[in-house]
């Protein structure tokens, strides 16, 4: 911890509420022992944990959950939108409206519109809130996905998962509080900063698991195990080290840092025994695997991510992130989008079904979102020589769709809307800051009170913004 007791008092006099102060003082006293210990939030939590689904690249809202009959009707006409100045985009956009190639229908009691590309999710619409008025600040992948994860486009800041663990600790002391699965770390859309802790305590950062593409393969964590030594020998080794450490500690009038090291060894050892079992699906039934689409086809990889996510949720991990890449459909959207959609549709629906069956749905918040959406006008990477089948759509930060479910979210709600072409959010707009505020709110955290003093000021996930989206709360 950065701050002395007196500084906290100073801070408190500058407007931070008593609750935050009390929590901070409390944390200060035992942070030295275990920063992951579960903590109470500012108010009773609706969700105990989050499963965040990153649709990396920016899914098209017009082809998924934001039904735009006018766009289809005006297909091929010049777009009424001015292209944003100051903005560099690849390829040529002739700004002609580009209709969705897919049928929409209303589903569930709520009658939410869903395109035919998401047949499984269509059956879950009464459990899902659709946020059609999303918007964000940047239209390049790197800054936009950084903002999606950290709230900021141009600074390296702690990720939302790190904030959650910082604020609440975690339930299972044998596992990290924040786990990401196969998170993209390279190219424009990926970065380890998405799950980093920046200036927050390092233990709050995401632990990224590798999940091989091979069918049915289990996840792995680097250095988790050493095959050249059996558990007993390793226990002997740790006991030897512990004896030396304790002897040294006694001669040192005690020391919280040294005690922390001793405890981290113990946690590591517990992880070694608990985590590998969690990574394997040996005791999952064939029916469950099938539910998630784990069968070696295009649904296999994301299906395994979602099943892992459920297993971590059960085990008490606070924040879990899964990722589906390849949503950046600049070209050939008509042939590529169905693959992307099919890749996640079954698994997300399967996860919802499975969580409900296990009584975990109400306490697990699921968020499905890209870093932005796509333009209603076409983009032609072939400089005007392409045809309908090669067209795609550009990046669109002004309007897109996010799904939320479980964890105190009201199902069957469609909140917010874009204009009649799907370009700009116009009603009940929800910025990413608002999404962050809402996620923290469901976890029992007031986003304005979860702060960390760094570089002379108090930072928070939502900067100076963010309002809880009350319209989607149950």
């Amino acid at each position, binding site marked *: 911890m950065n701050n002395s007791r007196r500084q906290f008092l100073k801070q408190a006099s500058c407007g931070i509420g008593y609750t935050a102060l009390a929590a901070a003082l409390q944390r200060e006293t035992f942070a030295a022992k275990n920063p992951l210990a579960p903590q109470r939030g500012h108010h009773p939590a609706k969700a105990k944990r989050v499963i965040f689904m990153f649709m990396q690249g920016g899914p098209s809202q017009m082809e998924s959950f934001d039904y735009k009959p006018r766009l289809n009707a005006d297909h091929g006409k010049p777009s009424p939108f001015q292209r944003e100045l100051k903005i560099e985009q690849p390829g040529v956009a002739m700004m002609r409206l580009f209709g969705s190639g897919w049928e929409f229908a209303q589903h569930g009691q709520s009658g939410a519109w869903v395109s035919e590309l998401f047949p499984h999710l269509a059956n879950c619409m009464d459990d899902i809130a659709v946020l059609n008025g999303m918007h964000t600040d940047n239209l390049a992948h790197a800054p936009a996905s950084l903002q999606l994860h950290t709230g900021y486009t141009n600074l390296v800041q702690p990720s939302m998962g790190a904030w959650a663990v910082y604020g609440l600790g975690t339930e299972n002391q044998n596992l990290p509080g924040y786990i990401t699965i196969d998170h993209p770390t390279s190219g424009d859309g990926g970065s380890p900063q998405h799950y980093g802790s920046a200036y927050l305590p*390092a233990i709050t950062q995401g632990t990224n698991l590798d999940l091989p593409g091979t069918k049915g393969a289990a996840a792995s964590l680097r*250095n988790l195990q050493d095959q050249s030594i059996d558990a007993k020998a390793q226990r002997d080794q740790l006991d030897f080290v512990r004896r030396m450490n304790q002897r040294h500690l006694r001669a040192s009038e005690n020391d919280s*840092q040294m005690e922390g090291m001793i405890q981290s060894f113990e946690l590591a050892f517990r992880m070694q025994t608990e985590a590998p079992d969690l990574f394997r699906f040996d005791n999952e039934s064939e029916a469950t695997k099938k539910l998630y689409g784990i069968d070696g086809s295009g649904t296999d990889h994301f299906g395994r991510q979602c099943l892992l996510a459920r297993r971590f949720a059960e085990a008490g991990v606070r924040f879990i992130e899964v990722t589906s890449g390849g949503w950046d459909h600049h070209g050939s959207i008509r042939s590529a989008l169905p693959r992307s959609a099919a890749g996640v549709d079954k698994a997300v629906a399967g996860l919802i079904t499975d969580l409900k069956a296990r009584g975990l749905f109400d306490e697990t918040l699921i968020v499905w979102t890209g870093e932005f959406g796509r333009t209603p006008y076409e983009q032609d990477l072939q400089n005007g020589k392409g045809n309908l089948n090669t067209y795609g759509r550009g990046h669109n930060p002004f309007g897109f769709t996010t799904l939320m479910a479980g964890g105190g979210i009201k199902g069957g709600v469609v909140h917010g809307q874009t204009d009649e072409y799907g370009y700009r959010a116009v009603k009940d707009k929800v910025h990413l800051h608002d999404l962050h505020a809402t996620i923290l709110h469901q976890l029992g955290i007031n986003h304005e009170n979860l702060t960390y003093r760094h570089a002379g000021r108090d930072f928070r996930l939502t900067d100076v913004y963010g309002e809880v989206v009350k319209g989607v709360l149950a």
Partner: protein
Amino acid sequence: MNCPRNLRHIPALVVLSIGCSLASADQGLHFFEQEVRPLLVEHCYSCHSASEKIKGGLSLDSRSGWQNGGDSGPSIVAGNPEASLLLKAVRYAEKDLQMPPKEKLPSTKIEILRKWIAMGAPDPREQAASSEEVSTAIAANDLWSFQALKKTEPPAIQLAAWSTNAIDRYVLSRLKAAGLPPAKPAKRQLLLRRLHLDLAGLPPMPEELSANARIEAVVDKLLASDSFGDRWARHWLDLTAYADTMGIGRAIPAIEAWRYRDYVINAFNTDKPFDEFIRQQVSGDIKIPAAPGISEGPDPTAEDIIATGFLAIGPWELVGGDKPQLRMDIVDRQLNRMGKAFLGMTFECARCHDHKFDPVSQHDYYALAGIFKSTVTLNGRINGVFSDINKTQLPETADELIARAERIKQHNASVAAAHSARKVALKQMEELKKQIDATQKRLAETVTGEDKTALEKSLVEFEEKHADASRKSARQRELAAALKHIRHSRTKSLAYAVRDTPEPEDAQINIRGSAHQLGPVVRRGFPHNIAPTDKPAFTRGSSGRIQLAHWLADNRNPLTARVWVNRVWHHLFGAGLVRTVDNFGAKGEQPSHPELLDHLAAEFMTNGWSTKKLVRQIVLSKTWQQASINPSALEAGVKDFDPDNRLLWRANRRRLEAEAIRDSMLFVSGQLDTGRGGPSLPYEEPGAFRAGGTGQFPDNARMAESIKNRRTIYLPQKRKGPFSAIDFINAFDLPDNNHETGRRTVTAVPTQALYLANSKFIQSCADALYKRFADHSAGRRINEIYLHTLGRRPHTDEIKQAIDFIEGLRQSLGSEEKAWSRFCQSILMTNEFLFRS
């Protein structure tokens, strides 16, 4: 409180109170109460009222609130709705100025506001606009760090053995006042270990522990060793967000960054006066122009130019489409870095509004911003897409020219070698293809058993060879492309450096930090409230960085010497006299020993800003040489009133930094490579560099084998994700390369334990450590291992424990060598090895 960074909420609104109301007062007030107040309460108060928030500095819950206004300049012209920004905002007339931000008001409500303004904006609400945030800024006179250094006489000698050093006299007088005895002197072995780790970043070797040299001589030897720079330069690099890649989006190589890293190491090793160190880094590239009475300065040397890498290298977002904003973001970053590193100030708060806590105004910020805005940092594009850091051609001596000619020759030879190796491989492929075809043909004809088997066997062989050659050809093609990519850095001597823009200019205030919402122009200059006040005048046609550098390094600047002396203290004690080493403002901490800090700062300047003299003075003090335990102080109940050891009643114990852990492991196992300096990026490692397009390092980029065992500071650093093989050190709280920080956090997390228990790196060190003493008898071997790693001999009971442990391992692992290696690894995992006490 937070600083907003973009424009989603742009409140705008100050009022020119003209007060020529046409409506009668009563009518107007009635209208206000009936129509306007409810509207303001419903739609505006949540962001613009003292009880909620005051976004954009604007409160709308009192008349004086909007009369004093917000950040965007005059906006209600009473009586003139069309000239009022407030109305523009609610009408959504401008893209960046839309209020309320969530949803436009219905037209009836907009009409109410229009009518109200047309009436002269009558408003009965009297209470003063209370903006607590604005009023909390402390006055310059009240901030200790802005006051001139105070000269005091060190307190009288109070303990004979402690009399030697002014540091001790200040510290002891405070201890005595608190009724605390100082700790006993640390044992010699421990003191030597502490000295070696703090000054050189490596533990002492047994011969150094057994020698009888005086401590002064040991200190001088360590200060004179190259290892001193290897360790202390890293402390400085932490403050500069140094890395060998640029861009926070992709890992694009920062080909020339290493020159700045080497410059910093060299500056510490040659004990470059710190004021000169500042001047070079801020303005080394500028030749001092002739002026009346002043002759023109000399041409900048290569070193001068390289030093400005301090400003040029950083986590710049190179793909942002909004280039004007990008430029101001870089200005902001440079200003912050300069402010933090040299002055311990957090200027960034003043980007959007006057600093809420410190006596720094937005005006001060943009006066400095103009200096950096008149400075070129990014210049040119990489592959037409990504902005590039400005590169300056370095002046060369004759020797350097000759060396470069040699480099060019070698480079050409490497390219040619790659090409010809590829040709050979292609030729092989061609021939093998022929053999494969021929074999296949014969196979089709031959049906009998043995012949067929033989043919099939040779077909497999040919195909394997073909695949080999194909891989080789691909590797050589990649290598040739990588060499081509870095051609200019091998054939020219370039440095990342800043330079002045052709036409230096003042900056305009960026309202709420947006480069597209411009306020008044602010003349370039220095913060008003920080001495010296006779600030140098700017010369025409220059950015003002020379003047800035001289102002920073002026003996009368109250912050510069204090901040640096405190940083040195922090690195030697584990905590500064001011523990918030990067913040000397109102939100920072007060010094624990203000007179001592001033005394050290004054003496530091008198000693020619010599860092080595300062370090020497500190480590020779009895204060620094105390033991890390003090039972008498504990008995006196010190834990109740000074648990954090601010009074310095004992030495602080602390875990080694990531670099020191890795370097020490290599060192004690006899593997540390003493090679130093030069480029470190692994272009020539197959697969470590993608030469196509912009050229970038993939996630799994490996380091060059040739530098793998060098000290950590010489290894390449990425801005996102580590080069594999040094991910080990990232587990130990290596600061994020994208943040300037003078104080690292220390955590104990299970990933560290997993690395210590299971990583290949530590196991290879353990193997090497065992092999170093494999020839010795078991007893002597244990002895040597303890001496080399922990700086002491094992106790009798420890020897027995070790022997039992190794015996157990031998049984479970089935190998003498593996058992000993595990034992060595276990010692490297202990707190005693990982901590300095």
